[in-house]
């Protein structure tokens, strides 16, 4: 045996010897000559633009203008190994063999030059002794703590002492400083219209206007308060504010890309959001449910049917776009997770963490390590279709069956020593057994864990021979999914030892789209049907062979009738011999008959219970934990170039490094706790700011999704922190905060400035109304415009929730995956219920700036394009609803009264005498009397007053 100490000594001697040899000045003159003639000029001409001290922008942190620089290498490690061209990255890249890294980037060097480089490296990479150019260590070091200390958003909340009217006080202070004055109160009906749209997205009805006027004449303040309370309690509140939230969540019901495959059951998430807003679920709970609703020890229950409400929120992670058959499936996964991290960080934290995917954030206190610390959570999380169990009836049936099983198993124990269920002699590598690794179950059929060997299964009245996952353990009709731990694909095939019926899917690098379309060659999905026989089933696909070395897990899906039992899974070429892995358990066979006879009565009652278990009520898109994994830093964002492993944790700047990541779970629950922790000032600030933004059209921080240094700092920092503190102290009630804001004098101002302020003064002092010297004029959102038309024409169906109404297709909506067209009027439902298919978005909504759901949008653009005018002038929906509206007022025989009513419906105020006169004359002189009222209705919808709030 080698003496380790001597061995080490020898190595260190060798090393020092080599370095002495390689030191400058020690090279043979002919080698130096070769370098000067053949190598240096090439380096100079082809490499130094990007890899030298004179580079304007150094690429890949690699210097090729000194031997030290070359040996030290760049982002991908040393550029050469003296003496060994085959191990030298520099040689590899100039050979142009790998399209991911070819240098020089534009053209391959001539073969003779490449040969020169090989010779040069082989001969030890000679380089004369010279003053090395400095290795340019002038790049600004990334100092996270310094950045954190310099930027406002990381600082703890500093609310001003709060009086009941703190909003008006803090706004007033700034107005005073700018020598401005608040505008007078808006007239009551203008305020009513503003409130109705802001809180419910619908115009006030004529009856509501009349009732309000009456109450206001009595006591204006209490009339306003009562109206606010009525609107906040309206179920339409959730639809209006839910739509704001869906923008953030890039909510859609299809995956986009080539075929626009559907996201099944996405609408349950939309309904969850509406319900949560209507029920005023505290915002911290709401956020925690999004991040980890599947892991909450006590999930919130739906009050109607007692199903799990919290888990529905987790579906948001998977609402993004998705590609089928990506050639580079690992990159596809990285892109998908990037979108998840982006949505998460913008929506909950108001930060653009995704900027740190390729390099430490250019301006913010967010490092690349922070980014990959977050992606690890998603690497450890899997997509799951959760089955709802109303009133926990399925769970309680199962509990009864477990009780029966326990009493039966007592009898087995009573039969004396159970013998040793022979453990496998040696487990071949890559073999997954229920006993040697952590598998995951969801749904009900498989229970929480495998059935151990020598266990009695009541509904079958049999004894297990080996540990087994069995979706028939509680009967045949339950649903359930069994997932293996994440494993590395090592062989070209995947084998399962199973009995029964199920669908099997191999998910490689988290690519779940094989549901619709196999990776490239299919074969990662299979329907298994072995009848009553245990046998090996093989997934055999080029996709598996090609993906050797990739991470994967297997899903075994029992979707109701029938059942599947699983004893082993392995990735290899050969099918293993089952007798060697799981030798027969003689004791089990011996006990089988006597026990079956003895327990047949118990078994019968178990079957009865099993038959009475109801089916799940709904399928919910959600997530579940998988094998915990940390991610590695992807150097310059490339998954092909991995750096160090980063433990899963929250952002450093928010104390993430102080908390150790959990070992046995994804850690999302702990992440959620940190996001909503009071130590984190961002969550409340961002939420309060967004509410302000929706009510004033501009946030206190106008870059609503970016509180970082690239965003715009708050116009009223004290107010922002006071609102945030108010949100937290009001138990995170969004309705309370909204109520507080809309009842302020600031919100109640008129859109016309105080008469003492001259237009010129205002144009100089507050041209953008940042100080809020008046109410802002705002255009209605796309949904509010369409919903108003339905409400006014009388077509609005106020029904809440449910499956989406198919979008009405025009001839312009073409492409693959084209769905069936829906009704022109969207069945009279509010716009939030129209299906949102990424490749077939409703044109009217797009024209009025509904965002394309590709990434999180916190602030819609408000554009002004001819398509908007063309829509209102010519769109068949607008035209037919204006006819419906005109018809609905036909019972008003007096023309003046009819005009007045229609004005009230459209604008909440009657016409001025002048308007009445103009309109009346216009109608009476209309050349086609039968169209006069319809045309009038259509004209009203084309006025600016209809689509703007003042």
């Amino acid at each position, binding site marked *: 045996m080698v003496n380790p100490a001597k061995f080490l000594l020898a190595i260190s001697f060798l090393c020092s010897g080599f370095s002495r040899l390689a030191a400058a000045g020690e090279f043979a003159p002919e080698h130096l000559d070769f370098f000067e003639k053949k190598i240096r000029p090439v380096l100079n001409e082809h490499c130094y633009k990007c890899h030298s001290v004179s580079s304007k922008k150094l690429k890949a942190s690699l210097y090729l203008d000194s031997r030290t620089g070359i040996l030290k290498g760049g982002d991908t490690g040393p550029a050469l190994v003296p003496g060994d061209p085959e191990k030298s990255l520099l040689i590899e890249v100039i050979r142009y063999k790998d399209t991911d890294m070819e240098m020089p980037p534009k053209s391959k060097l001539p073969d003779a030059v490449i040969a020169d480089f090989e010779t040069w490296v082989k001969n030890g990479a000679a380089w004369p002794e010279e003053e090395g150019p400095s290795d340019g260590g002038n790049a600004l070091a990334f100092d996270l703590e310094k950045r954190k200390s310099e930027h406002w958003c990381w600082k703890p909340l500093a609310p001003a002492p709060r009086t009941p009217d703190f909003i008006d006080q803090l706004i007033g202070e700034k107005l005073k400083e700018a020598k401005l004055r608040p505008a007078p109160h808006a007239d009551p009906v203008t305020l009513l219209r503003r409130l109705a749209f802001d809180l419910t997205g619908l115009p006030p009805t004529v009856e509501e206007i009349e009732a309000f006027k009456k109450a206001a004449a009595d006591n204006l303040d209490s009339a306003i308060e009562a109206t606010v309370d009525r609107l906040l309690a309206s179920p339409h509140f959730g639809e209006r504010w839910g739509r704001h939230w869906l923008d953030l969540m890039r909510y859609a019901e299809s995956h986009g890309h080539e075929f626009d495959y559907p996201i099944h059951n996405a609408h349950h998430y939309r309904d969850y959001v509406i319900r949560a807003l209507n029920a005023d679920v505290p915002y911290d709970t709401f956020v925690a449910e999004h991040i980890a609703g599947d892991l909450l020890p006590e999930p919130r229950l739906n009050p109607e049917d007692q199903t799990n409400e919290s888990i529905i929120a987790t579906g948001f992670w998977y609402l993004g776009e998705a590609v089928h058959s990506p050639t580079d499936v690992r990159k596809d996964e990285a892109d998908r997770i990037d979108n998840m991290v982006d949505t998460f960080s913008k929506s909950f934290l108001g930060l653009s963490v995704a900027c740190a995917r390729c390099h430490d954030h250019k301006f913010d206190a967010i490092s690349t390590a922070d980014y990959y610390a977050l992606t690890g959570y998603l690497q450890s999380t899997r997509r799951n279709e959760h089955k709802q169990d109303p009133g926990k009836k399925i769970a309680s049936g199962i509990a009864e069956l477990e009780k029966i099983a326990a009493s039966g198993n007592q009898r087995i124990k009573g039969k004396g020593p159970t013998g040793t269920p022979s453990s496998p002699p040696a487990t071949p590598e890559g073999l997954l057994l229920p006993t040697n690794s952590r598998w995951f179950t969801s749904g009900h059929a498989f229970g929480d864990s495998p059935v151990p060997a020598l266990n009695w299964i009541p509904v079958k009245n049999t004894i297990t021979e080996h540990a087994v996952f069995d979706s028939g353990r509680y009967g045949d009709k339950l649903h359930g999914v069994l997932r293996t731990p994440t494993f590395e694909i090592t062989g070209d095939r995947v084998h399962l030892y199973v009995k029964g019926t199920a669908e099997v899917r191999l998910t490689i690098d988290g690519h779940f789209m094989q549901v619709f379309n196999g990776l490239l060659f299919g074969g990662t999905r299979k329907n298994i049907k072995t009848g009553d026989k245990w046998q090996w089933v093989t997934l055999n696909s080029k996709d598996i062979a090609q993906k050797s070395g990739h991470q994967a897990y297997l899903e075994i899906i029992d979707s109701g009738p029938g059942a599947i039992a699983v004893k082993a899974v392995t990735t290899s070429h050969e099918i293993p011999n089952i007798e060697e892995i799981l030798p027969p358990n003689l004791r089990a066979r011996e006990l089988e008959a006597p026990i079956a006879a003895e327990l047949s009565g118990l078994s019968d009652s178990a079957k009865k219970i099993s038959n009475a278990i109801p089916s799940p009520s709904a399928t919910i898109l959600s997530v579940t934990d998988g094998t915990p994994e940390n991610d590695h830093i992807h150097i310059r964002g490339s998954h092909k170039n991995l750096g160090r492993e980063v433990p899963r944790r929250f952002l450093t700047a928010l104390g993430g490094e102080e908390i150790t990541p959990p070992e046995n779970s994804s850690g999302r629950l702990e992440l959620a706790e940190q996001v909503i922790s009071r130590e984190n000032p961002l969550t409340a600030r961002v939420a309060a700011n967004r509410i302000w933004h929706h009510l004033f059209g501009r946030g206190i921080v106008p870059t609503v999704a*970016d509180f970082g240094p690239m965003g715009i700092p708050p116009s009223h920092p004290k107010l922002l922190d006071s609102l945030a503190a108010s949100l937290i102290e009001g138990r995170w009630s969004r309705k309370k905060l909204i109520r507080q804001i809309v009842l302020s004098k600031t919100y109640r101002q008129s859109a016309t400035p105080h008469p003492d302020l001259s237009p010129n003064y205002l144009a100089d002092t507050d041209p953008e109304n940042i100080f809020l010297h008046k109410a802002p004029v705002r255009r209605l959102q796309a949904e509010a415009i369409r919903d108003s038309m339905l409400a006014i024409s009388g077509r609005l169906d106020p029904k809440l929730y449910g499956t989406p109404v198919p979008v009405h297709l025009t001839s312009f909506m073409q492409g693959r995956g084209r769905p069936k067209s829906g009704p022109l009027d969207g069945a009279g439902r509010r716009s939030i219920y129209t299906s949102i298919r990424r490749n077939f978005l409703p044109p009217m909504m797009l024209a009025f700036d509904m965002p394309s759901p590709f990434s999180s949008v916190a602030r819609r653009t408000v554009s002004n394009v001819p398509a908007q005018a063309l829509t209102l002038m010519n769109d068949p929906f607008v035209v037919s609803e204006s006819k419906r509206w005109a018809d609905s007022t036909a019972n008003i025989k007096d023309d003046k009264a009819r005009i007045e009513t229609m004005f009230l419906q459209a604008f909440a105020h009657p016409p001025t005498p002048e308007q009445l006169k103009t309109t009346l004359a216009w109608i009476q002189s209309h050349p086609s009397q039968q169209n006069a009222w319809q045309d009038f209705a259509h004209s009203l919808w084309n006025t600016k007053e209809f689509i703007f709030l003042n």
Partner: protein
Amino acid sequence: MHCRNFRPSSLTRRDMLQQSACGFGAVALSALLAENASAAKADYNPTNPLAPKKPHYTPKAKNVIFLYMDGGPSQVDTFDYKPLLKKFNGQDPRKAIGKLEPTQFDNIGKVMQSPWTFKQHGESGAWVSDLFPHIAKVADDLTFIKSMTSKFPEHTAANYFLHTGSGLQGRPSMGAWVGYGLGTENQNLPGFVVLNGGLIPPGGLDNFNSGYLPAAYQGSVFNPGNTPVANIKPAGSNPELQRRKLDLMRQLDLSSKDRFAGEEQIESAILNYETAFRMQAAVPDLMDLSGESDTVKKMYGLESDFNQTKIFGRQCLLARRLVERGVRFIELTCPGGNGDRWDQHNNLVDGHGKNCKTVDQPIAALIMDLKKLGLLDETLVIWTGEFGRTPFAQGGNGRDHNPFGFTTWMAGGGVKPGISYGRTDDWGYKAIENKVEIHDLHATMLHLLGIDHTKSTFRFSSRDMRLTDVHGHILKDILA
């Protein structure tokens, strides 16, 4: 002059005229001013986002016609002549060529020579196969890039990449960037028009979208047929009645102006109606080819016996008419009916035969016509697929996707005619000399339009986004 000035009094005729600088007449005025304006920043003007803007430097081209060959035409069967393929025809490419990159379908057949004959054409001696007899005649006007590369071997991502510089969905299309950078000269038509031949490429309308740029810049897809643009046809048959409705609307708008305290956004929304109203006339005028001579129609192939040639001929003719009307960016998509676009995984001879027949004559006519009218100098024509095809077969008689080296050509506005830039290896498989990336194509295109691709940015997601992201080099060697 402050457009935000609040005028509480009702409008007199004099007021109207005075305010027209901010209101109804603003577009025409700003269009005039732009000719001489000195401000060079491509700022976003929310009131009139399409107003012409001054470029960063003097442009060589005013307009772009982007001939999009959806599906990926084969370079080795069209413009990139590789005699070696004949020598090795039928051999195992892994032995002949060496290590192969993974292809989409990984069904590697034999080295496949081109079924078509190549000849040199014109003074430049450009190689063109007999698939393109008409284009061969204008070969001296073309600038070939034989070393184009893409990053994506699948259609959808490659389409997004070609159109937006990113393989992901939802980014602004290059036509939108051009509109953002330059505005548009014709206020009655959109600045970015997609003449849809019938095939919307994989990835859908998002290839032409404005992404995070304001919606004003998104591509307007003009469908073949009588109603090319959504809602362009006035509702109701009587234009008088529509005018009447708009008159009432305008009176009501004016009488309610006080409620909005003279807000600029109300003004611009009113202005919008004027534009929309004019568009209703401008679009049918554009589509009406009755004023074109029979010779011209015939030249473009409108009388061809092959229906797809007729469709594409009409698109090419419309493209010229759009250039004449000052539309900045015009993209043409291919007509359907020729197999699965240019995507000949099999039946190469039939599919490429039909696709070439569809576009050959109309494209040659477009080049000649633009030249004759003196418009070619200021119009950049670009012909490209999202990638090329493999020099070896996929299975039997087709070719797989190949993003590692393919051919793109340009003509007109500011590029050197009659040259060939870059080179693939002897197989036509990978670019090995002067490799060009899609980003470089974008950078060069913007440069020719007078836009510095590193300076035309839009703040989104806390980053100053660019069409070329952090990449892109101007192809100086091909500039005239």
